[in-house]
């Protein structure tokens, strides 16, 4: 039997579109707002400050160990909201589909997306679908936008790191990026490297509840831990020291990085949060993180100093101080 695929008709706005929305999207996301099928969703929002965020997802491959582009699109935007301390409430989803995309694959992606949203207790309240001719997109692109509400009195931001603070992370580094790369490049490692893609708002809420003194939360996605910390170091005009010994890196991830010539500190994560907190609450914060399923491998990986403002320095096992700078463009060798 011939596989059913997306055709240009599905994007025409006509019957095929309606069918697709009803059969695939509405069924999966099933909620009152979507069910109304109006031009926009009208939402009840609690009083206080609102956080908004949007992100587009274009990952290749669209399905990878530990998730697919759908679950990733939900986790990513939820995490962006969570990093400002917000409790995520609603998401929208926009799809750009390439003509010829397998309908079964689309269903798989949308279902994963719906499941991720349900698990996170966030509703997908509006959506859009476009189909482009073959070759004008790569299978499927998804944009998600989200709103959340920020609790009273919370003031988080990359500019708030202070000398004497410490840097915490909720688990291992580089998992998502290496899961994607190994799948895409067809590189078999001994075990399969799983993406860490996960929604962090729950973990973050527990952390903020226990330690309202938290100063910075950031998800080290593109560019990895090194790039994110560089941004913070510049915003706060502080130096950041990372301890090589303390970095949690899975053996298979380290091995794959080694083979491919990549530095795990520059590899993307999708279920990690970097938390900068005053040293006085570090122990407590670590306890909270470790008590959550997404933070079992939480560690203190670095500290904030007044030395070398704007720079991130890796204190190596042998006592050296390697500069971890912000890379521009592709990683071209600097060795002559």
């Amino acid at each position, binding site marked *: 039997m011939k596989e059913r695929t997306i055709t240009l008709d599905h994007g025409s706005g006509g019957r095929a579109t309606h069918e697709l929305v009803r059969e695939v999207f509405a069924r999966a996301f099933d909620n009152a707002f979507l069910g109304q099928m109006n031009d926009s969703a009208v939402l009840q929002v609690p009083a206080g400050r609102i956080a908004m965020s949007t992100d587009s997802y274009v990952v290749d491959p669209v399905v990878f160990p530990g998730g697919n582009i759908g679950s990733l699109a939900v986790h990513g935007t939820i995490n962006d909201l969570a990093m400002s301390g917000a409790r995520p409430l609603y998401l929208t989803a926009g799809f750009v589909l390439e003509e010829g995309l397998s309908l079964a694959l689309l269903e798989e992606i949308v279902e994963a997306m719906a499941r991720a949203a349900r698990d996170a207790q966030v509703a997908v309240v509006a959506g859009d679908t476009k189909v482009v001719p073959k070759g004008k997109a790569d299978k499927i692109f998804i944009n998600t936008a989200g709103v959340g509400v920020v609790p009273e009195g919370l003031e988080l931001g990359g500019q708030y790191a202070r000398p004497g603070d410490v840097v915490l992370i909720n688990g291992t580094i580089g998992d998502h990026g290496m899961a994607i790369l190994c799948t895409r490049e067809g590189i078999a490692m001994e075990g399969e490297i799983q993406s860490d893609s996960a929604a962090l708002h729950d973990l973050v809420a527990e952390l903020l509840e226990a330690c309202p003194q938290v100063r910075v939360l950031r998800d080290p996605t593109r560019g990895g831990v090194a790039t994110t910390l560089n941004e913070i170091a510049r915003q706060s005009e502080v130096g950041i020291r990372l301890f090589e010994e303390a970095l949690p890196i899975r053996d298979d991830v380290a091995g794959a990085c080694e083979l491919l*010539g990549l530095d795990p500190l520059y590899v993307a994560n999708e279920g990690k949060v970097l938390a900068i907190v005053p040293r006085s609450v570090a122990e407590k914060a670590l306890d909270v993180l470790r008590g959550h399923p997404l933070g079992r491998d939480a560690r203190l990986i670095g500290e904030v100093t007044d030395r070398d403002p704007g720079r991130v320095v890796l204190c190596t096992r*042998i006592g*050296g101080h390697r500069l971890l*700078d912000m890379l521009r*463009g592709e990683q071209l060798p600097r060795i*002559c």
Partner: protein
Amino acid sequence: MNPSGERGLRRVRVQVDGIVQGVGFRPTVYQLARSLDLAGRVRNDSEGVEIEVAGPEDRVAEFLRRLPREAPPLAKIVRMDVEERPYSPVDGFLIQASERTGSRTTLISPDVSICDDCLRELFDPHDRRFRYPFINCTNCGPRYTIIRDIPYDRDKTTMVSFPMCPACRAEYENPRDRRFHAQPNACWECGPTVWLEDPEGRRLAERDAAVRETIRLLSEGKIAAVKGLGGFHLAVAAGDEEAVARLRRRKIREEKPFAVMFSSLEDIRGVCRVSPEEEALLMSRERPIVLLARRPEPKPGCPPVAPSVAPGNRFLGAFLPYTPLHALLFRDAPYRALVMTSGNQSDEPIVTEDQTARERLRGIADAFLFHNRDIYIRCDDSVVRSARGKPRPIRRARGYVPVPVVLREPGPTVLGVGGELKNTVCLTRGRYAFLSQHVGDLENLETLRAFEHTIDHLKRILEVRPELIVHDLHLDYLSTQWAEARTDLPRLAVQHHHAHIASVAAERGWNGPVLGVALDGTGYGADGTLWGGEFLWVDGARYERLGRFSRLPLPGGEKAIKEPWRMAVAALWSLAGEEAERVHDDILSRWPERQRRVVLRMLQKGFNSPLSSSCGRLFDAVSSLAGLRDRITYEGQAAVELEQALEPDSGAYEARLVKEEDLWVLDTLPLLEETVRDVRRGVRPGLVSARFHNGLARAVVRMVEILREETGLSAVALSGGVFQNVYLSGKVEQELEDRGFEVLVHQEVPPNDACIALGQVHVGREYLKTLT
């Protein structure tokens, strides 16, 4: 007839520029004038030294003739202007006080190895400086490393805390004394001293007893941190295998050869072959480490050199004691050779401060021989080879810095911030280009600080403000980023290999267009790919790429540079493509299956495998294919070992020259093909190496001939790290000269990336010219 018309009498004013202060120049002038019975005066001024002499015409002429020749050893006369004055009688000859005004254009002397006179006094029991570790005079001793600011006077050096005793002061003030105005002049009474500490900071011994105790510890195989001129050394008896191996372990230095300081030239001769030119380098007052070919069989009676000193190496970096303290450490010692390696951990800059030494070298040294004359400027030992009888610097630092490279003409002040590895910086003033000492690899905090400190220091002692900052095209070089952050000054980005060629042109005083051959590791190219085997047309600020090596992918980026076996796989892949696994299975199976599979996969998909026309990477590929080196533990190791393995052979692998669009390409695939064929036939690595070298040299020369026909240029400049290879360099130079080319090669600065900063300032100044 002189201007005043007085028959037979003449008066002249002589302005001498160069390194003429603090080197005993004025006493020499004084003595020469007196011996010729001439009257006049001499004084230091902001430009250098100003002399006036008057007397009979013939003797004034003789004075002018003899002055440059009889100048003291440390003087370097760059220019001597003679101006006729109306004659009027003068009485006597005066040494006048220094002029302190005007711009700071005098040159600072580098540090100089102990002179024979001081050495004699050092071991003369009747001399008041008998066994004094800091004996010096105007002809020798520390300079650059102790100078905080100029003018060069004691209070501007780290000697400021040692007021001279009456005896020292008398010498210092006597124009006829060897120590007249010797700023570091000191003695047991008034000067710096040494002491020995254990790693816990307990004093074990002081003064002379400290030296004697250090000798005892060294002879027992202990590792001593010895504070020197430009930084700390880690010293250990070179013949003691266990001790040397311990030093390697503690310093985390796997295979990079250690340099060995021998007690005498004769002992070096026992271990290495020494040509007259190499002897001259070893004995020079710069006292660099000289890379020498080892004798297959050391002469009987020569000091033993343990295998771990330079594992598997046919060369040895040898040097001679250059401070009084070194001389003392060899006096009556049971050993005659010491490993003297830079006091640091792996890739950090050499330690200069006592407290840092206590902290950073604690796990390495068993004892610390300190002294209390602070090191203000870090300066590593210099390293040099001899190539066709000429010096070929590998690392330019102590002894050579801050002697400037003299440029063809004066120009605006420009700062070049250099490359990333083996970084140096360069600042110009007038006709001089002041290339800094070796700073190091800009990948750690300490080196970055040293980089910034060096720039600040150069600016201060030269009293200049650059009009332009020149940096590399590579955006991720720390030096580039540093330059970009200086928003108050205009900037210019210069392509890496353009800078390489410009540096030879600058050094050799070349004017006008030149063909450039840059055989190098990797540098960022104008087209966004990595360059490193380049044929350029260079004319000052302009250049054009005329040809290049064919490209190889670098599977894993920097990883491919650290693991030459990846380059071997890349070569096999380039030869056979998808068939590689089948056709070259015998060679590929040398490497673990999973790793080579991943690398092949990366090559197939082009993942993290940037393309490069690098010549250095070609060496890496051949070194690994020949079975010599799969992973390196120090930069350039695979290429170094390929050169060292070479056994003379007349064979030569063929490369192909083809024109692709506008660019000539030196296609190395046929050469790699022949390499693989020989390897497969079991040809010895030494012969593979020879045929590869010969073939490569031949192809480069043929390319240059083609380019001469196309451009009409017959001057060729050679630069890039590959030209540290004296076999290849020698062959290329010789064959080009035989074909009538004028060949420009590095003699004052290294061909590796230490020359980039000099090339940058040259291009920068030419660029500024085009604006006006």
